[in-house]
């Protein structure tokens, strides 16, 4: 099948799964920003999603998307390395026209996945998983309701090392998406001499707003815990 056999097909898979993940991030960011206004409103969203069937279907769908994106990333990186032959260049000049992020998508992706693991531990494990298992997480000897997202945000981002880890994670995400955004349109052919530049500008604005949305919640709760 061309989605597996051809190099263009493999890039199309990367771009379509990537696009779906960017859409997910957009929804996630919008929901997070509710926590800036009111913790109760944020908890209402947590309750609405929780371990209801539609949230579970969404979670499984997302897991599949991440897995495909991840497997294809490994595969493409491996093929690229193989195409270079036995030896690699000892000296490599970076061209001004080639983005730094585009050459480091794999490394950035690994940082994003590591951050994701931390994030799943901090939130998903204490929320949806507990609800599925019918148990509750215990923090400082206190049992936490699986839908009390506001508490978990307050708790997590009152610890400076988590704040630092999340800032690094979001920075890696910004670089990864600053290339991924326009590149996904390029891979499916919705780009050209005019639209390439436009997608790059749109992508930079979109991704910056996206990451700032996430970052604002982290920093808001961190500073709130200090002052």
């Amino acid at each position, binding site marked *: 099948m061309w989605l597996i056999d051809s190099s263009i097909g493999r890039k199309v898979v990367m771009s379509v799964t990537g696009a779906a993940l960017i859409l997910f991030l957009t929804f996630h960011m919008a929901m997070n920003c509710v926590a800036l206004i009111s913790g109760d409103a944020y908890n209402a969203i947590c309750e609405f999603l929780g371990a209801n069937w539609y949230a579970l279907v969404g979670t499984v769908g997302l897991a599949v998307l991440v897995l495909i994106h991840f497997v294809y990333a490994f595969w493409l990186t491996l093929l690229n390395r*193989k*195409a*270079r*032959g036995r030896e690699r*260049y000892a*000296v490599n*000049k970076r061209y001004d026209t080639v983005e730094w992020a585009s050459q480091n998508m794999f490394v950035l992706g690994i940082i994003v996945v590591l951050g994701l693991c931390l994030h799943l531990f901090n939130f998903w494990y204490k929320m949806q998983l507990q609800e599925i298992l019918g148990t509750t997480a215990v923090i400082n000897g206190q049992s936490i309701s699986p839908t009390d997202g506001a508490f978990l945000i307050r708790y997590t981002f009152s610890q400076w090392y988590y704040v630092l880890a999340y800032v690094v994670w979001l920075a890696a995400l910004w670089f990864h998406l600053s290339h991924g955004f326009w590149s996904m349109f390029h891979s499916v052919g919705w780009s050209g001499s005019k639209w390439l530049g436009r997608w790059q500008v749109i992508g930079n604005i979109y991704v910056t707003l996206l990451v700032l949305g996430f970052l604002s919640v982290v920093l808001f709760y961190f500073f709130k815990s200090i002052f």
Partner: protein
Amino acid sequence: MEKTISFKLKIWRQRGPKEKGQFKVYEMKDISTDASFLEMLDILNEQLINAGEEPVVFDHDCREGICGMCSLYINGYPHGPATGATTCQLYMRRFKDGETITVEPWRSAGFPIIRDLMVDRTAYDKIMQAGGYVSINTGGVPDANSIPISKEKADLAMDAASCIGCGACENLCPSRPISAITVNGISIHHNA
């Protein structure tokens, strides 16, 4: 007065396709800045032969920038730091006195190394031999010279036609060996 420079050459040496290669460093003294890069390599080879060593193998032919035979990846640039020029049109005035110049062969699975800096580029010939073409019934075709072509399209056609099949583009994107689109230009060249 003629200016001369001295520098270190770090060159990839590999005895055969299956052998393991490595960099070797050679000291070059008082080389004229008017020498071309290939002439400088000739001087090195003369020194090596006089010293009873194996000369460095590298590709070259016309030495006037049109045949596409010379290659070399110099200091991280295919064909060296000069833009729009092949290695034979690169002159030593581009380099500084005392600098270390790293010279590598093309590195692509599609171009296996034959020896030292020489790679096998027959993969490009295979594309030409494949001779892909499409037949389209165009009806009554007007004379080509009477069809006005926009500057933009003419430039694109020129880009394809100006490909000399040297294989430098493979350095940037060998994600699939021999996939560079402008390679088609070389077959146009040969058939013209």
